[in-house]
């Protein structure tokens, strides 16, 4: 990955009040995959369209590969930007076969050469032999691959993927994830993936930018974003539900803890000196990081933050079980947890059973209370 984003990557700053409010800042290095995540209407697609030159934003600057594409004096057309764009529903040319769909985007002159290159791209996306098929004769996954081949055949300096996996079934999607991950090892341009699926972004992206109402709230690695959202708004947007209010009662630098009082229960979080003793904080734990009491923990970990209570609701969703845990000391504040179906079976997880959970201090994240939530 190249770190000099200014010269080889994409640098974006966009702002406008209407028609769609935007206040977005993005950076994506060459070879990096940045996922834009946010709920519907958060401005993800608008940003992607602005990058491609399909939508003009009132103010800002877009530069890519050292060239300014958009600022107060310049606005390059989509043709001038050398962008590969995979549309949500692929937007293949229905009257052209797969080969010609791709060949049309090949910059080199000469039809024979264009078709030769198109065939090579189709082979790259595992569609060798499908060149003569028309879009209507291809499955959803195959169309997606043709769209990707067409986007790459353009020899783009920026690749844009607009929810490219939303129109295919789960099995196909998982295969496409794998293929994209393999393919992108050889791609040296910035790649922007728009998705509303955080799991998809976590799987594929090097970094994730969270958008809400057209504003970029946080850009971070998938792991940091999920475990340490900068504020409650980001936490809510990415789907965290275990967000609680507590009071800071002490700092223990020698043990590496900040101690909280949560409805009278002591909770130990990783040391966080920015919150003074006596102040109110919001603490968060991702639902997948809560341990059922029987679970084996890595050597050296004490049982931290043990809480007893009752399981109020259990729902098996495929390979996981989602459950609502009502702590004895505050049954009105449920903790949501997610365990694998295997672990749930092993622990005898069922509605109404008494159980203890524990939470590692390092998995508990502290945030400032947000007035909006």
């Amino acid at each position, binding site marked *: 990955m190249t770190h000099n984003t200014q010269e080889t990557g994409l640098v974006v700053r966009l702002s406008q009040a209407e028609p769609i409010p935007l206040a977005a800042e993005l950076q994506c290095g060459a070879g990096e995959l940045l996922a834009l995540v946010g709920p519907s209407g958060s401005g993800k697609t608008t940003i992607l369209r602005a990058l491609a030159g399909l939508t003009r934003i009132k103010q800002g600057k877009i530069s890519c590969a050292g060239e300014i594409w958009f600022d107060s004096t310049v606005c390059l057309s*989509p*043709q001038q930007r050398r962008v590969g764009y995979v*549309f949500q529903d692929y*937007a293949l*040319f229905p009257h052209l076969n797969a080969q010609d769909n791709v060949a049309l985007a090949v*910059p080199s002159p000469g039809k024979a050469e264009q078709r030769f290159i198109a065939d090579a791209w189709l082979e790259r996306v595992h569609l060798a032999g499908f060149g003569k098929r028309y879009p209507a004769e291809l499955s959803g996954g195959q169309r997606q691959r043709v769209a990707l081949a*067409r986007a790459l055949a*353009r020899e783009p300096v920026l690749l844009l993927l607009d929810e490219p996996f939303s129109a295919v079934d789960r099995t196909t999607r998982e295969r496409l994830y794998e293929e994209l991950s393999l393919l992108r090892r050889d791609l040296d341009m910035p790649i922007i993936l728009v998705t509303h699926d955080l799991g998809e972004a976590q799987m594929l992206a090097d970094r994730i930018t969270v958008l809400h109402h057209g504003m970029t709230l946080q850009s971070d690695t998938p792991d940091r974003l999920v475990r340490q959202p900068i504020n409650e708004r980001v936490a809510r947007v990415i789907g965290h539900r275990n967000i609680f209010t507590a009071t800071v009662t002490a700092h223990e630098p020698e043990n590496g803890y900040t101690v909280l009082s949560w409805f009278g229960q002591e909770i130990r979080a990783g040391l966080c000196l920015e919150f003074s003793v006596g102040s109110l904080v919001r603490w968060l734990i991702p639902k997948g990081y809560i341990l059922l009491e029987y679970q084996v923990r890595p050597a050296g970990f004490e049982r931290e933050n043990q809480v007893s209570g009752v399981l109020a609701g259990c729902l098996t969703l495929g390979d996981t079980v989602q459950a609502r845990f009502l702590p004895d000391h505050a049954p009105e504040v449920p903790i949501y947890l997610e365990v694998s179906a295997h672990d749930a079976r092993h622990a005898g997880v069922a509605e109404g059973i008494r159980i203890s959970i524990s939470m590692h201090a390092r998995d508990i994240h502290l945030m400032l209370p947000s007035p909006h939530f």
Partner: protein
Amino acid sequence: MMDWTALRLSLSLAGWTVFILLPLAIIAARFLAFNRPRGKNVIEALIALPLVLPPTVFGYYLLVAFGPHHWLGNGYQALFGRTFAFSFEGLLAASLLMNIPFAVQPLQRAFEAIPANVREAAWCSGLSRWRTFRQIEMPLAWPGLAGAAALTFSHTLGEFGVVLMVGGNIPGETKTIAISIYDRVQAFDDVAAGKMAALLLLISFLTVAVVFMLAEKRHDS
């Protein structure tokens, strides 16, 4: 007896109408399909007007405009030394105006049916606006173009009211096959009228059938 002169004139009028009107209709239809100009509804209503206006009313206004007391007819007469009304050129002008909805509407629907992101995908693939028009929009709008051509051609062949008002009945100049059939019926020459009517029916049917077949073939390929 078959009036071959009238048939030739009708075919020539229909051919010229299609030849001149279609390129203009493509421009207008494409503009209306991809843009929202101020007063779009009014423009569309004006385009559709010949569909609902009685041909005699439409013909009357054209006759007045093409006559020597109007600047248009007067100007034409000053330039070419003959009247605009009751001439083939006048008839062609009337036919062009009369056929605007038949040419524009199928094309507009066809352009509107092209998904916006297909055009955008073409631009993002590096195709210029002109190449996008030639290689993406026109092939996709082909059934609309075929429909517009078929409707304009056969409608011109069969047009009666406007032709009679603007063109009169001058053999070899403005007497079309539709007028000739009317003439024959007036003269109780049912055999000739029947033959010509059957021929007109056949030509109209063949035109529409061939054009639709071509459109279907192109669409399937």
